[in-house]
């Protein structure tokens, strides 16, 4: 192990999912010297879409074609939702800034500014989302233009059935049919894995014969849907190449875990962040976070190779919920393991979960999390700011149910944007007192 070195940053972001990445993006664009530490495990399962709002489970509204109208409904029912802290115009700016970054990283998105669009899922359902990867947006266009769609199934690829997709899409009046092809590349133990297939298409020699097999399968259809396996780094080029070869629009359908679209995000966004000057430490263990005599955060991070001491003026916790490790539970008591930030427990007489897994209201536990002030600074049990320079972002926040609301990326982007704007303004104000003295009374 290397010698202990001390490094000082303006901001340390803990967590490398959407919220952690968004925080680092906004911070780097504002010239804030940033380190990001995390695991990014949640991205393995990402669809690649940037959701804003699809449903409001508490009132049972589950089909917002206009997410902005949805936000009015949401804040009316649930005034403590993270979206309370940012105007709609600023939410749009935040989305534009983040999707601009994704484009620069090679993952361009499309969407309609006033409306949700949708992607076709492997269950044959239509998932509403706000900004959609270009590779999937073609599917939305094909449906809107009433094109005849061919879904390509790949023999031996588990959890992806063209028949299932077509059978379920029938009820939307979508004209689609499916044909199965053999994957020309490698198979390991005769099991196909989307990530291996993507590698093989990008690095190996599978692309040409894969494209030919698809071409042979096409009859009179005029749009082609395939499982998302078109490479990792060169995905947009490969899709364009395939479209030229077929002379037809091609769109991807996200696949089941572990997904290629998640891998693309992880690889490309982190690469781009590095280029933007963010110091990135993945898969490091964080040891106890404390405050030094200058009132800065001080902690050490270590992995198999080295151990570093980090000093940071500001800290954003974007560690996710239970799956990401941001929250933990012991005998049904929920706590935040890094700093023991206060988590308001659900009332003991209430059940944490509904007896129907698919209950439309969602499960009570999902709304439990970190309560914050308007700058997303965690509050303690007395509704006071836990620490002037501590912020939290993403799904760890309370009073939301991102999985039911279809608001995961939106909450990550909005809370990161607000937190980073606040700390960058306080930086400009030198001592920050002006900004933060005002909100103590409004803390709750």
């Amino acid at each position: 192990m290397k010698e202990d070195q001390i490094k000082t940053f303006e901001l340390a972001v803990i967590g490398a999912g959407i919220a952690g990445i968004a925080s680092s993006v906004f911070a780097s664009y504002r010239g804030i010297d940033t380190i990001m530490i995390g695991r990014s495990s949640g991205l393995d399962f990402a669809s690649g879409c940037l959701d804003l709002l699809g449903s409001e489970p508490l009132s049972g509204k589950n089909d917002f074609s206009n997410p902005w109208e949805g936000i009015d409904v949401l804040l009316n029912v649930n005034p403590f939702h993270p979206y309370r802290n940012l105007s709609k115009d600023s939410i749009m700016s935040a989305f534009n800034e983040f999707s601009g970054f994704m484009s620069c990283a090679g993952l361009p998105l499309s969407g309609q500014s006033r409306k949700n669009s949708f992607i076709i899922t492997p269950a044959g359902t239509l998932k509403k989302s706000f900004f959609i990867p270009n590779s999937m947006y073609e599917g939305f266009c094909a449906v809107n233009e009433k094109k005849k769609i061919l879904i390509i199934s790949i023999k031996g690829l588990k959890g992806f059935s063209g028949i299932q997709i077509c059978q379920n899409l029938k009820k939307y009046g979508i004209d689609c049919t499916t044909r199965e092809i053999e994957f020309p590349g490698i198979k390991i133990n005769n099991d196909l894995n989307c990530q291996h297939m993507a590698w093989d298409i990008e690095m190996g020699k599978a692309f040409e014969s894969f494209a030919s097999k698809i071409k042979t399968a096409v009859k009179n259809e005029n749009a082609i849907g395939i499982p998302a396996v078109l490479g990792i780094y060169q995905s947009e080029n490969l899709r364009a190449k395939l479209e030229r070869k077929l002379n037809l629009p091609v769109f991807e359908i996200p696949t089941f875990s572990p997904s290629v679209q998640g891998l693309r995000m992880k690889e490309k966004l982190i690469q781009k962040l590095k280029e933007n000057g963010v110091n990135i430490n993945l898969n490091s263990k964080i040891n106890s976070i404390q405050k030094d005599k200058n009132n800065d955060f001080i902690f050490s991070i270590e992995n198999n190779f080295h151990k570093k001491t980090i000093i940071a003026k500001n800290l954003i916790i974007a560690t996710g919920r239970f799956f990401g490790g941001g929250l933990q539970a012991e005998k049904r008591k929920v706590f935040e393991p890094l700093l023991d930030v206060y988590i308001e427990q659900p009332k003991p007489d209430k059940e944490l979960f509904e007896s129907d897994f698919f209950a439309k209201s969602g499960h009570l536990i999902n709304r439990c999390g970190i309560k914050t002030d308007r700058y997303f600074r965690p509050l303690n049990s007395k509704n006071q700011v836990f620490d002037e320079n501590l912020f939290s972002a993403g799904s760890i926040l309370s009073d939301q149910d991102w999985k039911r609301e279809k608001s995961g990326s939106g909450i990550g982007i909005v809370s990161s944007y607000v937190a980073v704007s606040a700390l960058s303004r306080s930086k400009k104000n030198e001592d920050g007192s002006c900004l933060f003295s005002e909100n103590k009374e409004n803390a709750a």
Partner: protein
Amino acid sequence: MIETDVLIIGGGATGAGIARDLSLRGVKCILVEQQDFNNGATGANHGLLHSGARYVAKDPEAASECRVEGEILKKLAPHCIENTGGLFVAVEGDDEKYAADFPAMCKRADIPVKSISLKEAFEMEPSLSDRLISAYYVEDSSIDPFRLTLDNMNDALNNGSKCFRFTKVEGFSKDGRVIKSAFLRDKNTNNVFEVRALQYINAAGAWAGNIASLAGAYIPMVYSKGTLIITSSRINKRVINRLRLAGDADILVPGGTVSILGTTSVEIDDLDNIRPTSREVDLIISEGMKMVPCLENVRYVRSYAGVRPLVCFGEKAGRKISRNYTLMDHEDQGIDNFISITGGKLTTYRLMAEKTSDLCCKRLKNTNPCLTDSIPLPESEGSSWTMPGKSASEWLGSNSPKDTLLCECEMVSKSMVDSVVKEIVSQGRTPTLKEIGLRTRLGKGSCQGAFCSFRTAAYLYDCGVLKNEEGIKEIKEFINERWKGFMPLIREKEFAQVELQEAFLCNLFGLENSNI
């Protein structure tokens, strides 16, 4: 109209045991079950073959029945039994007098028991609490109730019986003191058909009271709900019992690769929506860890609840009501060809079947003797995919390149699903994911169905078994069935698993918004 000698109502261990017993005596039977086999208490108990020691204080007669029956089953159905042996242990704070009187009580009921030192007990079961104060060795074993019922049923079918699953008794037609026929509804087709029998046997378990009232008879039923939880790996080699008057969560039974801890005893009023609760799970764990401390921190895979069909002729309550069986001839209630058998224990299912068949044969004037205490129970091949570890070893052993896994946690492959689908289709039914789950270990591993239910649905679409939006309904029903047993167990790391499951099924697929 179908004619038979005897119509047996109920497809648990008792009903299947009666079907086998009668068919071995040359009686033609039809068995009717409203759900699938083992849907009631037979499918929701400890899987414990009692030595009898648990009942020595309260019911020495039942205790000695358990011993005799246990010995018969170990000899005649060894493939359903793991002869584990068992311990009775008391910990600090338990009634020392009960512990001291225990060997004498066992002796009175003729139950073999051996006093062992604490050192010996720890050597046998290292997971025992260090606050142990006394320990005894007894002849408890674990038994697979699923195989037991299926093997009894298969033997009955081979001897000329018939059975209808997913078929419900709707009513009876009577002529004075005699039931003329029963009306049965096929739950798939909704068709009602008539079965005419000479004798009608009510072995419907917790539903016996309902069946009796359809026939114009009455059974004073009390429903006692019992909840149990399953650990993800096996903790004990032998059955571990708490040495005290029967109470909550005082038995830990090993079975295959898991251990089962339970039970509770809560009186309930109706049979709808029987499900374990998180409070019961907490109670079971807090009691169980007094005997075996690691039960506090082990991982649990599933909880489940069953209903003990108790019959109460007095004003007793809870654990005071006899756990013994009740055989009713209903003649005093004005019916001459109706018999009810209810209550009792899995351990004495064969004896219950014998006594019921004796009464039935006496009425039929059939003098053939009972054979189930002397002829071994034949082992049937079908439906043995539920055995822990079997699918894994078969899949590895077959080493077939095309046979990929649909369920990676429990290693259920396409060919296993194919064989189950084929069997169900041959019975003229459309297979559901739930039924496939009952016949394999699909969804029983750590993902609790999040991945494998979707993959299997996709596969069933490819095979042409599922159409339209049926897959979504199937996935939702399958996940909710697993959820019933998993939800009460969510205490620590399990939260993450639920989150992942919701991220897929709700955030990506939006299944909660489809009204199917």
